[in-house]
């Protein structure tokens, strides 16, 4: 395939950015999207142009490190991560626009790389169960109904990629936060800290500059792990309960 690529280039966090156009021939449909960019980078290096910076690590759709806006869609046209998107999803002669995640809480570091450390601070504000090492009871001392465990697992599969934030017109992280609150809230082990968790995480969320949720639903449509929208209802419900409990 032959492609025309329009790519956002920005030298650093404070530098002015702009779209640049590159032509690329001989793209095989078996390439992943990121392998296509690798090939482009090798060409740029050949011509003494600095390669395009973009993030990736596992290239298996599980670490959450990759993430690009492709033709305006977070992770591109399929419901998957950018590293698991393959060129067979595009056609010969196409023009593809590639930009970094856009959100106030995710500042651009360079080219297509953004800073998502706000997610870590969100987890640090309450997204855990307090248990010191060595003090855990025997695993079978608390039973967990299979369906609860399954539901906890299904939302625990969030990879922290940030596509939900990038896709949201408000730049809200409610889907990410709701997934964690639902994961821990489904399990008996998560109950003691349930009220505190939601209150603290919501406060941190606003502090980081993520926007409010107005139920648009773009987040769940873009989520490669198909985290359902009802985790946001769960989040709101937990918040109301916590407030009733006097938090």
């Amino acid at each position, binding site marked *: 395939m032959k492609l025309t690529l329009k790519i956002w280039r920005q030298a650093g*966090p404070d530098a002015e950015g702009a779209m640049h156009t590159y032509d690329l021939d001989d793209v*095989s*449909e*078996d*390439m*992943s999207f*990121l*392998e*296509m960019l*690798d090939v482009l980078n*090798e060409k740029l*290096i*050949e011509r003494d*142009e*600095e*390669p395009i*910076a973009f993030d*990736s*690590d*596992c*290239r*298996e759709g*599980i*670490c*959450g*490190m990759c993430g690009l806006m492709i033709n305006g869609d977070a992770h591109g046209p399929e419901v*998957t991560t950018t590293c*698991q998107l*393959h060129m067979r999803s595009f056609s010969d002669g196409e023009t593809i626009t590639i930009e970094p995640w856009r959100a106030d809480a995710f500042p651009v*570091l*360079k*080219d297509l*790389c953004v*800073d998502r*450390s706000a997610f*870590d601070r969100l*987890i640090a504000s309450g*997204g*855990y*169960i*307090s*248990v010191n*090492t*060595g*003090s*855990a*009871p025997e*695993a*079978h001392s608390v*039973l967990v*109904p*299979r369906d609860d*465990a*399954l539901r906890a*697992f299904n939302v*625990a*599969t969030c990879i*922290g990629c940030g596509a939900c934030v990038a896709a949201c017109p408000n730049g809200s992280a409610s889907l990410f936060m709701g997934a964690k609150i639902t994961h821990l809230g489904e*399990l008996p*082990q998560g109950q003691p800290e349930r009220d505190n968790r939601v209150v603290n995480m919501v406060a941190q969320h606003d502090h980081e500059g993520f926007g409010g949720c107005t139920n648009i639903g773009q987040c769940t449509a873009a989520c490669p792990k198909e985290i359902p929208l009802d985790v946001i209802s769960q989040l709101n419900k937990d918040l109301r309960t916590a407030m009733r409990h006097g938090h």
Partner: protein
Amino acid sequence: MPDTTSAADASRNAELDGEYDDAAGYYTPGEPIRDTKAPDGPVDQRWSTRKFEARLVNPANRRKLSVIIVGTGLAGASAAATLGEAGYRVKSFCYQDSPRRAHSIAAQGGINAAKNYKEDGDSTHRLFYDTVKGGDYRSRESNVYRLAEVSVNIIDQCVAQGVPFAREYGGLLDNRSFGGVQVSRTFYARGQTGQQLLIGAYQALERQVAAGTVETFTRHEMLELIVVDGKARGIVARDMVTGAIETHTADVVVLASGGYGNVFYLSTNAMGCNVTASWRAYRKGAYMGNPCYTQIHPTCIPVSGAHQSKLTLMSESLRNDGRIWVPKNKADCDKDPRDIPEEDRDYYLERIYPSFGNLVPRDIASRAAKNVCDEGRGVGPEVDGVRRGVYLDFSAAIERMGRDGIQEKYDNLFDMYERITGENPYEVPMRIYPAVHYVMGGLWVDYDLQSTIPGLFVTGEANFSDHGANRLGASALMQGLADGYFVLPHTIRDYLADGPFEHVGDDHPAVVEARESVQSRIDHFLGNNGTRSVDSYHRELGNIMWEFCGMERTEDGLKKAIDLIRTLKDDFWRNVKVLGEAETINQSLEKAGRVADFMELGELMCIDALNRRESCGGHFRGESQTEDGEALRHDDQYAYVAAWEFTGDDQPPVLHKEDLVYTAIEMKQRSYK
């Protein structure tokens, strides 16, 4: 697993009797090395003894003691969380943008623990036995016993953290059998066990960040170790965003920096996995144990072309139901597999290993696949003139269990396969091929997980200690968490009990020297103005390693590889092209440093493989096989850990041998026929 012949019988091979040292001239023999920390006495009491003997640190003094941990995978995150809780001041480093993205996140299959929940005969001793045997008697019995012993606590810890393991309808934990083991001891969270375990450890780590005991440094790469008066006292790291070269000092340093499988360029490892942290420590005096021990995983998606950047593993659990075959006739290799009748298919594993069939251990399954492809009977696209793939066929299983049954069991794997290859595995058989997956070699450590540099501890895949020549499935996750949650916190306190330690300032000559050496490497790369990209060198190195130091090795091949690597390394330093600046994200610069270290490691791996003229585990020496082509170990000559010491650039390394002594287990030759 049946044992048929004893080791002594099998290794008696007339032609091979006598002293062999293919690596003579490539190294200098050194003094033997010993693990002086493992207590004597019955194997099941050694860990209790060591924990009791390890000195204590008063809680009030812990705030004054500091720990640097490089790596936030299972090994690093669990250690950082636990040491933070204990009250030490911890600094945690990783090169990704978040600790949660460490490579451990990719592990699919599961984690072992001797819980015996199924009452099927499992026990600590059996897990210990299976692990030592699976490692072809090239791991340490004390370490492995301890691993099996603490395995049960790992599951308790993870469940308490909220790890959503698979459950049965009654609410109890479910487990399955995995990787050629005959008891059900593998705990799992669908095909994403590593992710769930790592999220648990990461959350525990972030909890300590909030508590102020752990400070995280993400997008930071350790580029040098600081050694003061013979002790590890800190690291030099580059802030990968601003390019700042920073020095961080502490009372001890822990490397939990993962494995170096990416020396092969193509592997199932994440793109950024590297050897730099370990290699810098090696160059500062930490010995490297068994570097040539590589695990090749049989069930990966085959290479599709020259653009390939990494390989994807398909969970081994697929081998429980899929049948592996290739066409009997070369002429059929490009046919639609559905048009090849039963009688023209060669179910080669079932044919050669009737009792284990498709479930033979990883090394055997991998080598058998390579052999049939080398014979010209591989399937799938031709890359560089050879078809490297074999079928993993579910059609019989679909008939037996129904499409729904298969879907319930393997759906996410089938989806993943289809997404990558564009083929629907419910309709056409999957294609698989072996790929580099894990390294059993790593920095040498004693029972305390301390390297030969005092104050430098090494955990998880970065150390060599627990897996021998071949790692069984679901045991790396176990080791990472065992080291971080349960072992290191005890052994490191024994070391820290010597504190308080003298303060090391930024102006200390050792710190200045370490910093300058980092700076001069960076200056070299950016000022080199060469003509070839870093990736092109990495790819070439990978081809050499895979060809000559991969699944099958020979004396001639390894010698050739060493020459090729030396030439390549020379050219790399003169001719590599790294564009851009130091003071910003510069991914070519990051890669250049990693590839430079991979080149040196690759050479040492070949020397290690040359020295070990025996076949064991994932490591097959062409010169050491039985009459019917099976791997042949030589316990009489090679029952040792090869611990290599660095002596200077272009100087031969020194080989120290640690004899492996088994008191609780008898060495047997493996047989899966």
